[in-house]
């Protein structure tokens, strides 16, 4: 296959990938979008085989390895529970990162195969592109591994900070750029390996200071990185499909990071530099325990909701941890039978990744047109009888609107307190991730339900 023809086919794949993302603008078109993506990928792979034109024994092995990887991937995709989606995505990002590193390494070792010159005399532009691709790929790999370990709970979700951390990261970043410059001058393979090695370390150091609840930003950021790494390799290989995809994924991840940061009213750098909320966790414990709290049980909650005309459910990460989405759905079904109008309110940073709550609710067969984003539903709290807060905390804290001293001041929150009564399912009065007390617990219209989210919801179902 001629180079021009295959370039045109790669362009078609690139367009199909754009359509794949475009499909996600609504759930109806999304499935079709996914097929566009699969078609684009198939075209890319077939065209590559045809343009390489090597159908010897190596080709058989490529197919075998493709199938091995494919069956592992398919196995994971079918087995993974929806609650584990954040760590799955983090794990997948690490694979893209490592694949980028491997491709860059083989391009460096055998530049002739990619038309990049000869070993020791690689074209300057290609050398810059491949080393940038390798560096970003390596950062994506090790960073995603850390994110994966944190999300999986293998590593503690609390931020790991030490003195001079940011300066070390900065120095490592500068060192990478400096080494790439030297690599271009000397073409030395030792320098190439050092670039990759330092990038691995930098990836680890960049992610360890970021705490568990900031994971939505981290995952989006690593998503973006994996895109830029792919684009770097795309430039090296002069491959349009890869360049287009890299740009799409890179900007997609960047936009998601932006949306997540805005959902917390924090700047990107503030999140990346990490270490939030670790300080004032213990500061005012004393006066906290003094305040009276109204304590209720499942029967009270069932009674309140049964007699309500509208209920808004506010799910959070706690719902995912307790796997309470199915029980919740049963509760809502029972309420609907009683003629109660039920809707769901989702805060942009609820959960551990963008859209996490929506997927869990969809899994529990909640129709997506009953699920609303913060801006869509926030005015409805004033007219609603009961707000059922399950596993969310900071995103409902009215302090974000009233107290300029509070670390979460200015963060958009759900106006839960405006509803006639609030049911707050929580294990204890402990503060949320931000380490600040939630005013809502002590309000007159709040009824605290101290229990595991799933157990409590199941009990409510029974007494309904």
């Amino acid at each position: 296959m001629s180079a021009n023809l295959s370039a045109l086919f790669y362009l078609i794949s690139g367009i199909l990938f754009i359509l794949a993302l475009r499909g996600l603008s609504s759930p109806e078109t999304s499935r079709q979008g996914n097929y566009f993506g699969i078609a684009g990928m198939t075209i890319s792979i077939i065209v590559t085989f045809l343009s390489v034109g090597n159908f010897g024994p190596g080709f058989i092995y490529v197919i075998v390895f493709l199938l091995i990887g494919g069956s592992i991937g398919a196995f994971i995709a079918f087995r993974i529970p929806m609650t584990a989606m954040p760590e799955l995505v983090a794990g997948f990002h690490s694979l893209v990162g490592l694949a980028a590193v491997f491709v860059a390494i083989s391009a460096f070792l055998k530049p002739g195969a990619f038309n990049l010159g000869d070993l020791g005399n690689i074209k300057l532009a290609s050398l810059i592109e491949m080393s940038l691709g390798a560096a970003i790929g390596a950062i994506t790999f090790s960073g995603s591994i850390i994110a994966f370990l944190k999300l999986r709970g293998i590593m503690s979700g609390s931020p790991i900070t030490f003195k001079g951390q940011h300066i070390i990261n900065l120095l490592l970043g500068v060192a990478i750029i400096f080494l790439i410059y030297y690599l271009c001058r000397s073409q030395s393979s030792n320098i190439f390996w050092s670039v990759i090695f330092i990038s691995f370390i930098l990836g680890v150091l960049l992610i360890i200071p970021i705490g568990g609840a900031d994971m939505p930003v981290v995952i989006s950021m690593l998503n973006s990185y994996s895109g830029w790494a792919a684009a770097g390799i795309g430039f090296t290989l002069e491959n349009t499909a890869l360049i287009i995809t890299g740009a799409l994924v890179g900007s997609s991840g960047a936009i998601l990071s932006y949306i997540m940061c805005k959902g917390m009213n924090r700047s990107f750098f503030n999140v990346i530099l990490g270490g939030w909320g670790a300080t004032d966790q213990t500061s005012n414990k004393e006066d906290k325990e003094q305040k009276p709290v109204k304590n209720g049980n499942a029967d009270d909650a069932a009674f309140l909701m049964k007699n309500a005309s509208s209920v808004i459910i506010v799910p959070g990460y706690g719902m995912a941890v307790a796997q309470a989405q199915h029980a919740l759905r049963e509760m809502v079904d029972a309420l609907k039978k009683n003629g109660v109008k039920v809707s769901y309110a989702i805060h942009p940073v609820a959960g551990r990744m963008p859209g996490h709550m929506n997927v869990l609710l969809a899994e529990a067969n909640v129709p997506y047109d009953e699920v609303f984003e913060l801006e869509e539903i926030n005015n409805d709290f004033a007219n609603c009888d009961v707000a059922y807060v399950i596993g969310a905390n900071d995103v409902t804290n009215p302090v974000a609107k009233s107290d300029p001293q509070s670390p979460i001041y200015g963060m958009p929150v759900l106006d839960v307190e405006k509803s006639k009564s609030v049911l707050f399912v929580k294990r204890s009065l402990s503060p949320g991730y931000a380490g600040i007390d939630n005013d809502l617990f002590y309000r007159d219209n709040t009824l605290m339900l101290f229990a595991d989210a799933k157990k409590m919801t199941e009990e409510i179902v029974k007494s309904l």
Partner: protein
Amino acid sequence: MEIDPFIFRLSIFILSIFVGYYVVWSVTPSLHTPLMSVTNAISSVIIVGAIIAALADTSSSVFQGSNIFGFLAIILAAVNIFGGFLVTQRMLQMYKKKKK
């Protein structure tokens, strides 16, 4: 003076960033998780590089030096391609409208 092909690729790259920007803003927030898994799947198109690397000059032996990295990259990318598209499909299948 002739234009360096690099400039063309750079133009494609920058225009794609703009396309990505507008396309991704139009993605509904409830589908942000599938968005991440599908972007992850499509970024595995890096497998084209892996295939080229694996099949480069296999005249003497299939597994040698740089080819091995190509084969490793093929496995990693293949996990992602199949895993990414299938898990996206699984998620999207769950999004249903209210039964009328």
